[in-house]
């Protein structure tokens, strides 16, 4: 009982997990949009550093989105308990969005090539 009273809230953990899922999904979605048309304005805007090409912007955006979403979610949930089961399930699902979005055969499937 005493140990339960001292239990930390799950908000910060949920925030980190969900932010990880969001960052992963961001990488997948950004990559997918880029690969569907690598001549578009969006894709050209991903070249932040020419020697690295589009990967420089794609990866940087994913990392920025990860840390920013983590900061926001942590601020909102830091003193609260959340529905951890739902949030962690969503986070894990978003990890797989990232995995699928970065998988080249998926790009070709959507492009019809």
């Amino acid at each position, binding site marked *: 009982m005493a140990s339960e009273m001292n239990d*930390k809230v799950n908000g910060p953990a949920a925030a980190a*997990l969900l932010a990880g899922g969001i960052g992963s999904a961001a*990488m997948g979605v950004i990559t997918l949009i880029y690969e569907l048309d690598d001549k578009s304005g969006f894709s050209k805007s991903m070249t932040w550093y020419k020697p690295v090409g589009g990967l*420089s912007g794609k*990866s940087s955006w994913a990392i920025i989105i990860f840390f920013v979403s983590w900061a926001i979610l942590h601020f909102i949930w830091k003193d609260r308990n959340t529905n*951890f089961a739902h949030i*962690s399930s969503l986070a894990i699902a978003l*990890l797989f969005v990232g995995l699928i979005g*970065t*998988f080249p055969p998926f790009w070709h499937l959507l492009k019809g090539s």
Partner: protein
Amino acid sequence: MEMNVREIWTVVHGMVFGLIFLLGFSGALYAVYSLKAEWLTTEGMTRTVNIIKVYLWGLAISVWAAVFTGAWVVYPWYRATPPDGTTDLSAFPRSLLLVNESTAQWHEFGMEWKEHVAFLAPIAATVVAFVVSYYGTQLARKIGERRAVMIFFIFAFVAMAIAGMFGAFITKAAAVR
């Protein structure tokens, strides 16, 4: 046994930073899995958690270093465009792979997957290190949280393993020199 600067950086990227994470993964995963109140004394729990925290942050740092050295140091050499009229493409690995149908897929599938999926690993590994650090010994009582952490960690490993495997194969087919 001489290596030039590019080869050294390629080794640092894959065989140092990448390998630290891939080799260290299983021990760290087991340590998190075994963080159970019924398996450890209070003192054992505290000692294990203190070691796991350092271990996980070390692995997270290593995987960030792997993807950054890969993307920002080695990758530019890999994808450099050869000057017009170049016939010897050995210093231009991407072009070397793409010029032959039998090797093109190493780039179009292997490198294209590797360069993107790798970035999922440090994100997931950082989350794992944070959650374990946040809960500390309380993680032993948090079955759902521990399970979520292990899933994230396995995901990080899978992403790194894909990147590492294709890195090794691509280096064999067209090394960065």
